């Protein structure tokens, strides 16, 4: 059986360049638009923090169960994919998803998720992020996946929050 993989996201390394979004829309639609991309960067630009949101192919995926027309299936690579012909665009998967990863295709109102660029050696978004390394394709259930998330949670808590507070405290300066 094919090894199941997942895109590991490291928001600390993300620079908010949106190359991954461009790569995704280019691969799947031959157009360039962030709204056609299956990966999205949620921006907290004021504090220069960017969080890539992409389907993580949950082991016990709630979207699989909630889809009323059975459009969602699991592929061999472990990705959870939505069949565009069957989907009726009810968005139930999007609401139930823990990170709201399914994206509404603005052209037909149907939902789409990351299929890890089936047939390609490496998903395009991961390839586009080579230099920053915020996105990596790793075997699913590897401990590193959990570690990455723990790291981020820690950094947000220990390093980041005090910074934002202190920023307002700098004496003699007012910065918005």
């Amino acid at each position, binding site marked *: 059986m094919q090894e199941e993989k997942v895109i590991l996201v490291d928001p*600390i390394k993300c*620079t*908010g*360049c*949106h*190359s991954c979004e*461009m*790569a995704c*829309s*280019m*691969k799947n*639609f*031959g*157009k*360039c*638009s*962030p*709204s*056609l991309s299956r990966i999205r960067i*949620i*921006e*907290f*630009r*004021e*504090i*220069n*923090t960017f969080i890539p949101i992409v389907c993580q192919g949950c082991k016990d995926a709630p979207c699989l169960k909630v889809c009323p027309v059975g459009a969602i299936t699991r592929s061999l690579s472990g990705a959870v994919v939505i069949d565009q012909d069957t989907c009726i665009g009810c968005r139930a998967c999007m609401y139930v998803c823990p990170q709201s990863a399914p994206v509404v295709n*603005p052209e037909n109102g149907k939902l789409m998720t990351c299929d890890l660029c089936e047939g390609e050696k490496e998903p395009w978004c991961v*390839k*586009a*992020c*080579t*230099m*920053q390394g915020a996105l990596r394709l790793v075997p699913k259930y590897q401990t590193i996946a959990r570690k990455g998330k723990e790291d981020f949670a820690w950094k947000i808590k220990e390093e980041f929050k005090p*910074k*934002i507070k*202190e*920023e307002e*405290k*700098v004496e003699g*300066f*007012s*910065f*918005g």
Partner: protein
Amino acid sequence: MYGWMGKRLRVGLTNSEIKTENLPLEYLKKWIGGRGFNSELLYHETQQGMDPFDPANPLCFGVGPLCGTFAPLSGRTTVSACSPMTCSLRGTDVHGPGDGNMGGHFGPFLKYAGYDQLVIKGKASKPVYLWIDDDHVEIKDAEPLWGSKVKEGTTRIMDELGGDPNIRVAIIGPAGENLVRYACVINSYGSATGRNGMGAVMGSKNLKAVAVRGTKPIEIADPENFARSAWELREKIHNSASAIRRREEGSMDLFDVGNAIGINANKNCSTGYMPGIEETYGGKQWAEKFLFRRKGCWSCPVSCGRTTYIKEGKYAGFYASGPEMEAVCAMGPRIDSYDVPAVNVMCGMTNQLGLDVVSVGGAISWTMECFEKGYLAQEDTGGIPFEWRDTETAMRVFEMIAYRKGFGDVLAEGSIRAAEKLGVGMDIVPHCRGQEHISVDPRIALGFSLGYAMSTRGSDHLRNYSCMEFPGCAEDRKYMTEEIFGPELAKEFWKDFPKEMWTLKPTKPRLCTWSERNKGVADLVGCCCQAIGSWGGAGNWREAYTPLLRYATGVDLPDEEVWRGAERVIAIERAGWNREGSARQDDTHIERYFTEPVAGGPHKGRKINREEWRWAQSEYYRLHGWDEDGFITPEKAKELGIEEVIPNIEKGRKLYEESMKRQKSK
């Protein structure tokens, strides 16, 4: 329509008029994009003797056909208007075309909203901001926002519009509102249109900000080849050592190189070397101490943008976007300061206030030198002492400039106008066409120097980006020399390399001409010029951008046409200056650089040779097909398809001749 969106959005603020125009394919092919559209419109919709604060002055935001696509480095926007900053020897009330180029995310979203260009004219009766949400365009009240700094203003506008993080805001700070002549437009909290005072033009229109959200896709004519070509370029960048270094160290990686070869212009551009600044300001050290996180312009794999966080010391807890190398140069070495944390804070402050960091550094360092030379004293500046290395005073003065308080009101006019008003220190303003140099000494790097003088937006390195004259770059890109110089001159170029790189050889005008078109192509397509300039990991214009341009647009645009397009844009900008009677007399440096040798460093004793300089000017004109006085010839104008400039140039020539006569009689 492929690549382009094919539309121009026109906004008249006086009568709240909003209309869109379709751009025909012929027009798109001729002017290609970004700076091309802007410069064309600017020439045709301004007249001789235009006042930059006149409501009729068009403020244009232009994006290129590659902007916002999968092509790497494609996040650049050009903002153009008649510039309040620049002037001519004919007088400080003579203004030419100006523009600034910004990265960040504004341009791509303007394109996703469906426009290649946004043109704003008129003047609103009270502060407003513009809200573009795809086809919905609205002029909204900005009275409560007036006076806010960049960060606060951006956040408030985004909150007011619903808090969607996909809204991009280009905004002016207090400096723009108060018509500081070198105010910037700033988008994404820290990507500024440096130089030329586009922010002041925006402020004069009572326009606080432009907010944009777009959801339309950019169609690509040949997706398969486009993607392949983009991947090739991306891989080239991923494997480029200079790109990796740029990513790690930001543009501050140039400090080590720059100071080692002695080109950094310090202390108001009077010396070319400062002992030990590599250790103080070098990219590696900076990244270790202050780098909070990188940030990238749209679709850029390199992400040389920085955010600063100061951990300890006097400014502990400070957080800001930036800085970039020129910003650090202007705030540090230019005022002889080694205090890096203070420099970071100063860069952050200028961003928040919306000031152009190079010009504000120039104004302050000029005042400092005036104090040193005894031209000015405390009683002239309202009791403020200007001493070298005094970063605290500089910080205080920033606020005064941005709000035009006290002596800040004088400096807000820029150093050349301040010198004129105070009647002192005109000879030590390091400027061309009224705009201060960046921190590369014009006596040493003569390709850059020629570029400053010939630049169509006042002294600036980002017009004629002659990086090939630096030994490191030249060796990296050795294979290009034949293309740039031709076989004969290429030999000349490599003769006595690198020792002879610092004299005004016959190669310099040629390099300058090539580089300005090379840079021009990047501006036209809407991509980054650094990738084909300073770090150069993407090669040159031909390798990097033209295949992508053809695949994206599906239009038959051979390399020669694109090259010609870049030449045309430079010509029409030049025509804008020619119309004002500005030509050879302005294409030069201040007397200082011809008479006063460099004070220290590896190039001690070097100055510009006047005879050689005159020759270089003429050679540069010859290469452009301009006449001996620096006016575009009718033949050249016809060849480039811009015949309409000919009568205006003739009028300009009369102004030029009059002014030359006046000067001689003096």
